[in-house]
């Protein structure tokens, strides 16, 4: 307790509070601008922390991470372009809400859900870090593979009209990610001798292309998403407290889900938010309204992806294992200040750990304050004439695509993928499954291959693991339910037509 008070005192020092606030602000800016992501923001923030003391330094990095994760929902809702892969699921219902003129309600609910998810996961982390990290160790390649297959099965629920079209689009996503260096064998695949293709297609670049380029092409016809949203009057009405309270139980479930997924290294925010979205849709009495602007479809993924921030801190701090590229930069920031995460962290650096807890709480207060004030400004983005908005978004996205790896190849990739995505949209093929396939493809392949290497080629490694069997069973259940539902619907339609 005494240690905790000492840490709290250090964390509440004006410098530290300012550092967390600065980090949160940078994160929010990068997260909310389409094209720029918080991974880039963290890479920029890292050198600033070199000269700082350890607590303000870690506070700055954690603030950037948290702000970035929260900010991703802003452009997802307003423009239909996710600010980060973790916000891709938020687009599905958040953007239709904005088109109806309810942007501020969706944004407000997203902020509250994010803060709730983040603080909830922090609490879980504080009380059960040792227990959860011991459970996370049990997740080997076979178990992670099964979990990811379960995540992939949610494609079935993202298809809108035709399940087959959704599956086709998911497979295209899986294929794109096999281009480049094979991580296990170290050989180039499907690169046709090109050095540029050896770097593979970046998930972030593809995401920018998939969502932003169709937006710009449609703007030239005058019937784009932005035009629709502009048609209604922009209001800055906040969601009521009673409305949010009624979603409390949903938020708790999604926060638990996000924390759990985050605790397993090698997964991350995107899979958590898609699973949460699917969960909300499945449990909802109004399934049909999903995809058309159901508030639950915003709250669920936003709660889950911020709960991941607390979840990933568990393996990061107690095992020294970063779950994704963003936490890897946080890890580098801790190391350079002499804090080496792992089982001995809580013995050697208890003060810093408590300081980090305090910094996370503080970051969420900053998020709440900055975002609630910001929403009133953000919604005015919809008042910008569509052609100017489209040109502006294009420039931001090009800067974003470039800044991922400082490579011209990424600019070409964004253009090509974007135009193909536009064609798919025009043919009514859903593009969200492409993102899901791209997020999960490399994990699915690498974990499967590693598992088989461990077992010497025997499938027992999957069949003898209760955890793997559970997730594979859930995935099978989702696919069967969805197929049966689809066939029934078609039979019903034919009856009506006949």
């Amino acid at each position, binding site marked *: 307790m005494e240690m905790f008070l000492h840490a709290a005192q250090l964390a509440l020092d004006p410098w530290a509070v300012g550092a967390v606030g600065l980090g949160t602000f940078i994160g929010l800016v990068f997260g909310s601008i389409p094209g720029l992501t918080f991974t880039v923001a963290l890479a920029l923030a890292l050198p600033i922390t070199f000269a700082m003391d350890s607590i303000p330094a870690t506070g700055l990095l954690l603030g950037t991470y948290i702000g970035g994760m929260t900010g991703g929902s802003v452009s997802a809702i307003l423009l239909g372009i996710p600010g980060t892969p973790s916000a891709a699921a938020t687009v599905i219902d958040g953007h239709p809400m904005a088109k109806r003129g309810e942007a501020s309600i969706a944004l407000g609910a997203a902020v509250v859900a994010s803060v709730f998810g983040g603080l909830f996961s922090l609490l879980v982390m504080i009380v059960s870090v040792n227990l959860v990290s011991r459970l996370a160790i049990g997740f080997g390649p076979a178990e992670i593979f099964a979990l990811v297959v379960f995540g992939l099965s949610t494609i079935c629920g993202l298809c809108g009209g035709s399940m087959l079209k959704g599956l086709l689009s998911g497979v295209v996503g899986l294929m794109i990610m096999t281009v480049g260096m094979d991580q296990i064998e170290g050989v180039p695949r499907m690169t046709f001798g090109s050095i540029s293709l050896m770097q593979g297609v970046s998930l972030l670049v593809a995401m920018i292309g998939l969502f932003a380029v169709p937006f710009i092409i449609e703007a030239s016809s005058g019937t784009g998403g932005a035009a629709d949203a502009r048609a209604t009057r922009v209001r800055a009405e906040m969601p009521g407290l009673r409305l949010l309270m009624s979603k409390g139980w949903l938020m708790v479930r999604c926060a638990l889900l996000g924390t759990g997924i985050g605790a397993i290294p090698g997964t991350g925010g995107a899979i958590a938010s898609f699973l949460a979205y699917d969960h909300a849709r499945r449990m909802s009495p109004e399934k049909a309204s999903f995809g058309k602007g159901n508030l639950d479809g915003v709250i669920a993924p936003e709660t889950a992806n911020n709960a991941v921030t607390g979840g990933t801190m568990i393996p990061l701090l107690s095992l020294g294992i970063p779950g994704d590229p963003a936490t890897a930069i946080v890890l580098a920031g801790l190391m350079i200040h002499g804090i*080496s995460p792992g089982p001995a962290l809580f013995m050697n650096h208890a003060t810093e750990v408590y300081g980090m807890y305090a910094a996370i709480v503080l970051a969420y207060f900053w998020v709440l304050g900055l975002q609630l004030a910001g929403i009133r400004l953000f919604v005015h983005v919809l008042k910008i004439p569509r052609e100017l908005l489209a040109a502006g978004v294009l420039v931001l996205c090009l800067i974003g695509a470039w800044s991922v790896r400082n490579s011209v190849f990424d600019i070409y990739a964004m253009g090509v993928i974007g135009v193909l995505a536009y064609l798919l949209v025009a043919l009514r093929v859903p593009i969200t499954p492409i993102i899901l396939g791209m997020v999960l493809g490399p994990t699915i392949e690498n974990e499967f291959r590693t598992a088989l*290497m461990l077992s010497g080629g025997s499938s027992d490694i999957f069949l003898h693991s209760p955890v793997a069997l559970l997730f594979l069973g859930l995935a099978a259940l989702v696919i069967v339910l969805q197929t049966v539902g689809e066939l029934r619907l078609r039979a019903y339609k034919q009856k009506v037509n006949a």
Partner: protein
Amino acid sequence: MKMRTAMGGGIAVLAAAAVLAAGVPQARAEFPEKPVEMTVLFGGTASTIAQVLSETMAGELGEPVVPVSRTGGGGAVGYSHVMATAPDGYSIVWNSNSVNTTAHIGRVPYSYEDFVPIARVSEETPALAVSAEKGWTGLQDMARAVSGSDDHLKVGISGKGSFTHLVSAALFDAMGIADNVTFIAYGDGKAPVELLAGRIDAAIQWPGQFKSYLDSGDLNVLAVTGAKRIDLLPDVPTAQEQGVDIDITMWRGLAAPKGTPAPVVARLAAAAEAATQSEEFRKAAGNIGFMPAYAGPEEFAAVIARDDAFYAGLLDKLGLGK
């Protein structure tokens, strides 16, 4: 006679002047007069060290040194980019022995000879860790246990042809247990957990990853693979101390495209040397777990050439050479 010598001398001076004027117009005394771009090939530790280095070097040069990350293809993307830039010292690469390994695995249109070495800056020494439950305290315990059984030792590596793979293969070969080893490739950074869970038996990784686990007693670190012990793990003996003849470390340093003028290289090398001696750089080295290891252009060139021959042989032996 006198006349001819004078004339010869005059021609030589003229020729030298012409070469200076035409060939190396950038090599003015005031290099650098604009920011220097430092291409970084990898994320993780490589990128963190590059950021610390560039800040201290910028102080020395009086112009910013901008680390620009160009990752992918095992370094091929960044090396190819730098190779194609003008050899004027304003575009340099933060390189490592990946220039030797990728060239010998093949598929890249460059080798170390396409670059002018500026300076070696740091050295990292891999460490071999096993779960504490195994009860092994040295390399001999491990060799005895493995050669006495039919079971294969499962050794975690970052990927086939990766540096951890090469070091592991060389170490187990030197220990005489190469035939009893199966390599398992998994994602970066997961080694300690895979060891704790007992899914793999041993792993070679950077010592920073193992430090906390060694403190908590969950893992044993049996050896480091360099000729000298390292500061981060002072109690861990080297492989050579245990009778296994192996000395592999990973160097990182700076290089410029071939044709960069010598005075510019010297200016950059001086800045790198001053940076490696700075308080800030040494502190970062201690915390992250690498050793500052400055070597000037000539010595660095010798190191690279020696390593190139070594990795060519090793990759051939592993069947990974081109």
